[in-house]
């Protein structure tokens, strides 16, 4: 330490508050230089973060047999926020009385197997063209999506919450998922 710096330090030290006794023990603040920051109100540590991203459902994993399938969503959203009315109108225009009737008629275009569901907020991820037919198909699928599960065995339930989702179905191949590395 140069004489000039030592002088400045002595000057500044006289302005700083005297450290509290409890914080002045050698165990807590061993380096003498740090004593000057004790009880001064300044942070002594900070939270740091690092991204943690590994998306096997949306990105797929060939080795674990996770295969992302089609995305479904109703687009555009109804201006009045009434998703159910929108879908019922689509159903009626398509000539169906019930959702189950529509499912039965269009079952060739609908997923047959149980799948996992992930939300995909990016509308660009959808492959359909947003036509009334595509929207009704999306409504039928969304009606059978409950949380992270799509099951064709479940009843079609249309709620605003369900219908407002944009989802992608992900198939899981059981044997690949549990396959050993040495097989």
């Amino acid at each position, binding site marked *: 330490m140069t004489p000039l710096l030592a002088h400045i330090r002595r000057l500044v030290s006289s302005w700083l508050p005297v450290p509290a006794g409890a914080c002045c023990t050698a165990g807590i603040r061993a380096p003498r230089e740090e004593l000057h920051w004790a009880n001064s109100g300044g942070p002594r540590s*900070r939270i*740091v973060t690092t991204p943690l991203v590994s998306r096997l*459902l949306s990105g797929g994993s060939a080795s674990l047999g996770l295969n992302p399938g089609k995305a479904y969503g109703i687009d555009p959203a109804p201006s009045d926020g009434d998703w159910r009315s929108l879908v019922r109108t689509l159903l009626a225009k398509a000539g169906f009385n019930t959702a189950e009737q529509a499912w039965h008629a269009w079952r060739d275009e609908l997923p047959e197997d149980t799948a*996992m569901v992930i939300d995909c907020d990016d509308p660009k991820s959808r492959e359909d063209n947003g036509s009334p037919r595509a929207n009704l198909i999306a409504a039928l699928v969304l009606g059978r999506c409950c*949380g992270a599960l799509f099951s064709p065995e479940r009843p079609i339930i249309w709620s605003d919450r369900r219908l407002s989702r944009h989802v992608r179905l992900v198939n899981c191949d059981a*044997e690949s998922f549990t*396959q050993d590395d040495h097989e």
Partner: protein
Amino acid sequence: MKKRKQKQSPQDQPDAKAQTPVIRLDGFPDLPRLLPPGWLRSLGVYGYDEVEDLILTALVTGDPLLLVGKAGTGKTFLLNSLSEALGLEHRHYNASLIAFDDLVGFPYPEEGGASIRYIQTPATVWQAESVLIDELSRCKPEHQNRLFSLVHERRIQGLDLPNLRYRWAAMNPCEAEDGDEFYDGSVALDQALADRFALLIEVPDWDAMTEDDRSLVADARGIGAISVDGIGLVRAVEEGRRRFENAPDRLHEAALTYASAVATQLLKPSVRLSPRRVRLLSRNLVASTLVSGGVPGRDGFYNTLARSLPQPGWGVRVEDSVLRGAHATAWDLLTRGQESRWLSAVLSESRLAKRCTELLANAPSPDVAAMAIRQSLVQLPKPEAAILALALLPVIKQRPDDFGQESLAAVVETAAPVLEVQSEAKWRLRDGLEPQANPHPTLTACAAVLEGLPPRRRTRATQLFYHCIAHELPIDHPEALERTLDETIRAAKPFTSRTNKP
């Protein structure tokens, strides 16, 4: 029910029991049947397939057996053939003609006149190993009382019969006094005597036999042939006794629970079972289960129950519907208890791989499996719940009918966030330290574990570690956690094939 020269091998017979779906309790050791189905055919006895396990049961327990049936249905033939095949010193008495001296011999005073001895003849009972009292229902009441101690205590005139192993009796029905089935002179047994027979088996008549069996019974060839033990009957009885003496406590408990419940249920329609009868029923259930394979079965328990009632001995018929109702209630009680025990055992299993196998392999029903899965996912620490969900996911998704939609939903809800991590790891750094030089401590420890793993295993472990770190779940020992994940996935793997159903 006659004897033929050319006896059929039991293996040649259609195995009707094997084709019938059997509902059984889980968790009991599977033992081989003592004898193959149709074993009585090897003794030239046909049409008894339905009751042959219970006849073998009586041989195993050595408890008194009473056959009830119409004239000419082969009761006497069956019991005499059994004694021949077992190589027993046998006595066959006709109770309607018997004089008590025939049983004990002629009495004479010993020298000094202090006691009485009996002159033994080939017909006296003293050296007998098996006794058949035929036409028991035609016996004079005073003789019934004397036979009582023979049946009940293996004693006569107050003296032990140490060689006597089997006490058998046969009689015609005594219930229908107003029709063709009336047997003149066949009177109801004293209830106390009837209650001493552990098994009272009503034997089948012509109308209950198949065409093939009728032909075999009607064929006169072979009458008078000696019955020999060509199928290992002696060995099977010895093995049965060994099993019976070492019967597991759990089997005794199941039989006791069932027998007590049946007795209680039968009180309502006024069908009384004495406490001794409940104990005999319990013994019969244990022995018949061990005879037929070691695992209690719903149909097997019913058959044993139906043949353990003393009422046919005094001419009372218990309605089949009444008996089936009591049986259904008792069996439900037994299986409910089993479900509860299974659930408790699964939820207290701390080894995750073992718990996974138990859930997938041994659940008593889809409902209970679903309950165990949902409770496990809630009860386990979150990292372990995530592991269990990852392991169960492929199997349950493949077979939702076996585990229920609700358990599938619960598993998916837990597994999906593990497979899709988009978050950040947070940690606290002292001022002046650089994150690059001082990375997330848990992440660093996990990375060290991941480094040495093969690709698939690493992918699965990465997801688990990332999920835990993103949700700030504690990972005290990353290596142990990864090992648990791998073991649990391996435990689930055999069940991913559709051929392996629980």
